[in-house]
């Protein structure tokens, strides 16, 4: 039997407004609990919401970026349920008339083909606070700093058929919201979260299988793992004669498995109705046109430009343009170094390696784009070799500072003085009589490969600072002279 997965995603993107969606409190992350919760956020009696129009602008930007219908009249509704970190006892959201209607994005699959994924809708809502279970034994702490942070909930069509497609879609949405500057995209801090609806069916079937929803997965890697695991679990279950139950599941990253959180029967009746404290949001064409005219470059356009402007390969352009921060970083490095290929190699190579190893993002990179550009300038002007540059980068990463400061402080400046190099070469030849003999007695066409040994010795003796081109030339000249 051949199975097919059907995947639809709900992404919650925290909008990067300075203040909350319905109050003036700050949205900054990481403050002391309950220091960024005002009377409105605490749902004190008598308080009322006032809509933050910046959130509207951001939602409209997103709608335009995915070629969606913009709701000319959108309405806030109340979604009623009790939870300690939901202070009002309802979440203000948009059910009946969302700000963003149907749209779509194109994702690139592994085989290079493009697939269009439908976006059903995207609506504005407020985030809840956080329940803290570990800090107070036997009790639950409530931190309402996050309560009222604006969210854009982006709901996809069930158009994805594999975990890889799902991740490609999430990356695309991530890329769009960060490029638009409407979300910082920080998944670890919960600024960008994903709920995955997964079902399986036999290939060729029309009907969808029963779906499960796996909530709040906070990295691209976990999304892929969670979906893969859930697909396997459902297939195993059905093949063993079981039945998938419609339920909400939680992904446990430590165990790499999903587990049941609540079944449909336990689900709330949210008693949605239009929020009487907020007026419908009515926007006109002019409002939309102004936003459209000021949209920044979007990921697809940027990728095309990277190929054109920096003569990058399709793959390099995709990687470098996909993440807004990475694209900006790359462009700064390329412009400073005046060498796009070198910049691409370093951003995708050394920098990405360090980011991954340290589990950090390019936005938080300890080496700035200007600093990396400065390093590459020193490779280009032969001040240092590529190998030395890696050492300098290492130092920049761990200790900070510019390339020039580190090269100077550590004395890593490349030796291009041929006199000094000749002296070292002479010493190496004098010390390695056995290898010199092998060289001189070898067939001339094999000598080229043998020169690497001497090269290594010279580099070792100079601490890697000798200009590799100059060393090769001098070595060749002196060794070949011995052969005659």
């Amino acid at each position: 039997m051949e199975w097919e997965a059907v995947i639809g995603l709900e992404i919650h993107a925290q909008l990067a407004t300075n203040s909350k969606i319905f109050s003036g409190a700050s949205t900054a992350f990481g403050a002391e609990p309950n220091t960024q919760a005002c009377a409105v956020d605490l749902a004190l009696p008598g308080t009322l919401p006032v809509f933050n129009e910046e959130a509207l602008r951001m939602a409209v930007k997103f709608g335009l970026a995915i070629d969606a219908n913009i709701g000319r009249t959108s309405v806030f509704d109340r979604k009623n349920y009790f939870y300690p970190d939901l202070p009002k006892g309802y979440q203000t959201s948009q059910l009946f008339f969302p700000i963003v209607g149907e749209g779509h994005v194109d994702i690139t699959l592994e085989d290079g083909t493009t697939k269009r994924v439908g976006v059903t809708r995207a609506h504005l809502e407020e985030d809840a606070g956080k329940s803290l279970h570990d800090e107070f034994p036997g009790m639950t702490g409530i931190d309402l700093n996050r309560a009222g942070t604006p969210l854009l909930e982006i709901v996809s069509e069930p158009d994805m058929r594999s975990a890889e497609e799902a991740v490609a879609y999430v990356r695309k949405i991530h890329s769009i919201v960060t490029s638009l500057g409407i979300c910082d995209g920080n998944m670890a801090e919960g600024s960008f979260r994903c709920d995955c609806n997964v079902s399986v069916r036999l290939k060729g079937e029309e009907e969808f299988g029963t779906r499960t929803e796996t909530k709040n997965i906070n990295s691209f890697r976990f999304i892929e793992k969670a979906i893969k695991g859930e697909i396997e679990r459902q297939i195993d279950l059905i093949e063993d004669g079981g039945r998938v139950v419609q339920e909400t599941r939680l992904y446990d990253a430590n165990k790499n498995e999903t587990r049941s959180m609540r079944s449909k029967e336990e689900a709330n009746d949210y008693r949605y109705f239009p929020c009487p404290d907020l007026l419908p949001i009515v926007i006109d064409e002019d409002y939309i046109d102004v936003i459209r005219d000021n949209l920044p470059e979007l990921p697809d356009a940027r990728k095309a430009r990277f190929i054109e402007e920096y003569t990058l390969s399709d793959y390099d352009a995709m990687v470098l343009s996909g993440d807004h921060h990475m694209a900006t970083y790359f462009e700064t490095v390329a412009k400073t170094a005046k060498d796009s290929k070198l910049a691409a190699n370093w951003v995708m190579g050394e920098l990405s390696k360090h980011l991954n190893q340290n589990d950090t993002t390019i936005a938080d990179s300890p080496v700035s784009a200007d600093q990396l550009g400065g390093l590459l300038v020193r490779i280009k002007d032969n001040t240092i070799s590529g190998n030395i540059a890696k050492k300098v980068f290492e130092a920049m990463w761990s200790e900070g500072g510019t390339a020039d400061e580190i090269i100077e402080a550590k004395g890593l400046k490349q030796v291009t003085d041929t006199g000094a190099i000749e002296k070292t070469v002479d010493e190496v030849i004098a010390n390695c009589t056995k290898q010199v003999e092998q060289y001189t007695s070898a067939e001339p066409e094999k000598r080229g490969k043998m020169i690497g040994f001497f090269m290594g010795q010279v580099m070792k003796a100079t601490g890697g600072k000798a200009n590799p081109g100059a060393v090769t030339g001098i070595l060749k000249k002196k060794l070949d002279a011995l052969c005659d």
Partner: protein
Amino acid sequence: MFDKTLAELAQGLENGDFSSVELTQAYLDRIAAEDGKYNSFITVTGEQALEQAKAADEARATGNAGAFTGLPIAHKDIFCTEGVRTSCASKMLDNFVSPYNATVVNKFNTAGAVMLGKTNMDEFAMGSSNESSFYGPSKNPWDTDRVPGGSSGGSAAAVAAHLAPAATGTDTGGSIRQPAALCGITGLKPTYGRVSRFGMIAFASSLDQGGPMTRTAEDAAMMLNVMAGFDPNDSTCMQKDVPDYTADLSKPLTGLKIGLPKEFFPDDLNPAVAQQVQAAIKEYEALGATVKEVSLPNTALAIPAYYIIAPSEASSNLSRFDGVRYGYRCENPVDLEDLYKRSRGEGFGPEVKRRIMVGAYALSEGFYDAYYKKAQQIRRLIKQDYVNALNDVDVIMGPTTPHPAFKLGEKTSDPVAMYMEDIFTISLNLAGMPGISIPCGMTEGLPVGLQIIGNYFAEEKLLNVAHQFQVATDWHKKTPQGI
């Protein structure tokens, strides 16, 4: 001194006949001596009142007094007052001291008013008799065996018993006008969006509106001058200029067109009420008005529609009272569900629970279209009825209530009978238009109220029409025995 209107007291302060401290102290003494009979205050704020009075006297001494400086008033205990218990007459908020002021309270403070205290009301403004108050019912000063009406019964009783020259109230289905009628005072429900709702604890957000409860229309105009106006903290508050509501009070009523909706004079209307209201309308004709019959055909649907919409909104608005952050919390909850169930079960009274249940039911999946959506459709029809009627006439008049004040306990066992009390007032909240109730007669020692309804933002017209009646008659000057 206690029979003086706000306007007269303002004159007295201006003339130096008495200071605000003297005036305030006199009222505080009177409340201490007399309110045992009426239970019209939940909290008396003597100390703060005297501080405010002192500040007002100082402002006057330095030439910085405004029209309201030094005048004492009371606030319905639904308005949040910083540092003062704001209970909404509920056990749920018996321990709640607000950390902020409602916009209306701030406006009065800025105008130099003195707050005597917080008045009794039906719990969370749900009721028409004041009997649902956690603090016990307020009593009608005309007959303390009778209800003062509700939900702003404490404010009405306090003004009628001369324990405060004026008070604030709120009106969701008649909660200013009905107690004003039953206690023989003047009560104005402004246009929805005229007065900020920020800091006014929500019952039904799309219907709630704060307004003045006073002895005269002139005083109501003075109060509204302070209360009305745009508030950036309330998205439903209108960005519309506030006129001087006292400016047009004296305009003659020649040519005024009064509409009498036949639906407001049903066959079973209390005959004495009908007779007093008809007499008042004769008085208006004598003042130069003409009268014609109009129709509000959907009036009978107002109560059923209201009792879907208001409880629906209330069921959601009152969800925040969950025992987690403030207010009543049950003893020793075993788990979260127990905390919710017992805190709410023990903290809310029966009428509040009844409305939460009705509202939650009306909004639940599968019933929403049949109840909430249908009720909103009816609401539009009712609004259209008023718009149509007011195309032909300047104001609409009728009785405020179907009969005078009833006995305490008379309707507590029959919620529907209680709901019918608001038959003439409730449709106006659904339409969002302003209405005022003024005393227009007496029957068996109890006051009768005349309701005057106008178009959106026609408060000036209503106050003018009410004031001219009060210039021509003495009904508003009647005082309960022993006061």
